């Protein structure tokens, strides 16, 4: 019996365990396995292999039974996921339905999740803007949250490291508030976007429109061929999974790369119950896993544990990792675990039309858009609200077909579409302030299908967010009017937090164990062989799409873990 146990323990022991196979977990796995560490990746969802498990990727529009629409029964039962822009017939199988993993909304919160190999990296919007020190220095300068324990110089080499491997298309814009990176050829701005860029540049100092930096391969083909990936074909069907590997996902890139080292074990249907803490050793020794299908539990062991379960699920795992040393969750000596969660404010948008440039149109598709870096309160505080917003900005030539009539008239108008005006639009991406009352916690009673406590989410907008919405709409309206755009419409869709899919924090980084959960290397202060390198680690949110920063932190932390283990 003892021999059997020893054998079992040996079989279940790895050099490192990574919890989660999404954006940041995939990066941790790649870096660990490349360095020769036998690594177990635990993924709670089903297996999705690159290309093989993209069932809709090559379907034509007419091959979808509902031509893209979601069945009413599914919509009614799953109101939260049905609000997500990408939850359509072609990608619905990659999203978690509300009924599958319930949670408690103390306040309305749309929790968008992807439980499968690759997680949400299959589904993301692929925007990868770097942070600058204007972002990292925000909390210290403006007196909220706690000071970030890192600065741009700490992350810059890791941004480069990640960008080279994932492939980032972008332009060298030379902006201090949006540092340049390792870019493949940029995608083009459209004629009206270029016009707006020039107009804004001439009339609004400090404001700019750039082409988004996006995780698509647009050059250096030979290098990416080694990953089995090819140049982006501009299908703009990314959410189905790309048969070319044109955009970056864990499935197309980091996980197969890690697999090729021979050091990766990927286990699906593995719901992590908790991280096991050994009091004698004063460190984590492994992970307790529930089989999602059989509900059997198994322990796995490793000296290094990376937690990359997605921002809120990583909080859930830490909160549920209770021991006599940590009765309120792993590393939660200060009671701040699960608190200071924040997100990006996506509520407001604006649209308009431009009658000029009638001699131009566009051709093909662009899985990308224009980007307006934050221009409010960058160098110093100058408005009545803290921080600011970035914004998307895109414009394309409309083609008008009159659908109003029926019969022969309708047939005639379908045969004779006409060019209309250029349609322009923008949406805000506002920084929100992490607050103690914005928190997630474990419900003491309600459990999910795997016997895990349900997560209780209590996150809301505040006056700063409202003031920022007003300012965004005012500034954009003024810039649109000044550029001669007509028929300007503004909107505040009052969406709940979460639908931005940029929830962050709960296990924030900081200098001081009294006021933060993680140190500057993303290690749990009180349990340093556990690294948290997904959205849970974020001290503040800034305005940039966060995935690139998570990936850079994951790579940086692996480097640290390996240096630690050698010393």
């Amino acid at each position: 019996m003892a021999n059997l146990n020893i054998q079992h323990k040996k079989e279940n022991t790895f050099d490192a365990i990574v919890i989660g196979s999404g954006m940041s977990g995939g990066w941790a796995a790649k870096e660990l396995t490349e360095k020769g560490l036998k690594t177990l990746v635990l993924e709670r969802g089903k297996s999705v292999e690159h290309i093989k498990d993209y069932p809709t990727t090559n379907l034509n529009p007419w091959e979808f039974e509902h031509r893209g629409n979601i069945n009413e029964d599914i919509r009614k039962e799953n109101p939260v996921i049905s609000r997500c822009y990408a939850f359509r017939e072609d990608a619905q199988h990659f999203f978690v339905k509300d009924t599958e993993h319930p949670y408690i909304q103390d306040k309305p919160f749309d929790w968008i999740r992807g439980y499968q190999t690759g997680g949400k990296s299959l589904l993301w919007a692929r925007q990868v803007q770097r942070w600058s020190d204007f972002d990292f220095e925000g909390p210290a300068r403006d007196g909220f949250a706690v000071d970030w324990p890192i600065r741009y110089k700490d992350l810059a080499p890791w941004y480069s490291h990640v960008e080279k491997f994932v492939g980032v298309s972008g332009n060298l814009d030379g902006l201090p508030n949006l540092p340049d990176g390792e870019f493949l050829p940029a995608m083009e701005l459209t004629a009206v976007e270029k016009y707006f860029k020039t107009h804004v540049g001439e009339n609004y100092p400090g404001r700019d429109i750039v082409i988004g930096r996006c995780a698509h391969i647009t050059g250096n083909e030979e290098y990416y061929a080694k990953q089995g990936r090819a140049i982006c074909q501009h299908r703009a069907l990314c959410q189905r999974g790309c048969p070319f590997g044109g955009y970056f996902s864990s499935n197309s890139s980091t996980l197969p790369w890690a697999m090729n080292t021979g050091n990766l074990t990927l286990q699906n249907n593995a719901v992590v119950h908790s991280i096991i803490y050994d009091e004698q050793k004063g460190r984590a020794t492994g992970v307790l896993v529930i089989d999602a299908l059989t509900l059997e539990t198994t322990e796995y062991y490793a000296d290094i544990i990376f937690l990359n379960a997605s921002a809120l699920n990583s909080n859930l795992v830490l909160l549920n990792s209770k021991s006599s040393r940590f009765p309120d969750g792993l590393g939660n000596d200060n009671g701040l675990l699960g608190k200071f969660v924040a997100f990006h404010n996506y509520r407001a948008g604006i649209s308009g039309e431009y009658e000029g440039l009638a001699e131009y149109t566009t051709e093909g598709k662009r899985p990308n858009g224009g980007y307006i870096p934050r221009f409010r309160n960058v160098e110093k505080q100058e408005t009545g609200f803290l921080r600011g917003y970035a914004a998307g900005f895109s414009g394309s030539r409309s083609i008008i077909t009159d659908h109003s009539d029926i019969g022969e008239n309708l047939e005639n108008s379908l045969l004779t579409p006409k060019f209309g005006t250029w349609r322009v639009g923008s949406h805000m991406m506002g920084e929100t302030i992490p607050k103690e009352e914005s928190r997630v916690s474990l419900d003491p009673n309600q459990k999910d299908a795997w016997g895990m406590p349900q997560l209780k989410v209590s996150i809301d907008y505040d006056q700063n967010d409202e003031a920022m919405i007003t300012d965004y709409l005012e500034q954009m309206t003024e810039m649109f009017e000044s550029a001669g755009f007509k028929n300007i419409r503004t909107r505040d869709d009052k969406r709940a937090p979460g639908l931005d899919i940029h929830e962050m924090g709960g296990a924030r980084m900081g200098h001081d164990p009294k006021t933060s959960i993680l140190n500057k290397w993303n290690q749990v202060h009180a349990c340093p062989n556990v690294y948290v390198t997904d959205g849970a680690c974020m001290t503040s949110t800034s305005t940039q799409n966060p995935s690139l920063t998570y990936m850079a932190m994951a790579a940086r932390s692996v480097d640290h873990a390996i240096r630690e283990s050698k010393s």
Partner: protein
Amino acid sequence: MDRRLALKQLAWITGGVILIPSCDFTQESVLEAYEKLQVTASQRETLNQVTNTIFPGVKLKKGEEVDLPDFVLIMANDCLPESEQEQFLKGLKSFDAFSKKEFGKTFEKMDSSESAEAYRGIMAMEAEENSDLASTKNFLAITKRFALQGYLTSEYYLTEIMPYKMIPGGFKGSKLVSELERINPNG
């Protein structure tokens, strides 16, 4: 996809219908593929007349040639909220009677310009809330919406009329408009 295929195959084996008794002691077959709608073959034919009125096949293929009635029924069965589904069914099931009352005959007995005028006439009428006319108009509006969606995403339209390119291969942000080139919204 699979469910529809299975139902189609089943329908083929069973002759497309199952028999249910109805209250007036006549027996009308119900099309099994649309389990929520409980529509009969003759109601499907009524719908076919409407979609052929929307797409009469003068310059382009006729509605029935791109399977519009079935597409409209699939969408009405699967993708409509209950209240709209009720309106659709109420309007559909009384449409022949409504048409006879208003125009003296059903759409089936009209030529395409007559039925088009009748369609436009109905849509121009002022309807009181919850009236028969209101559900007839709602039925026609829903049918038009799905017929248009089905037509514009049909294989025929996207390969022969306004070809869709799954793999554009690139993107140009400023392309000079050419007078000679046909404008293709899917190009």
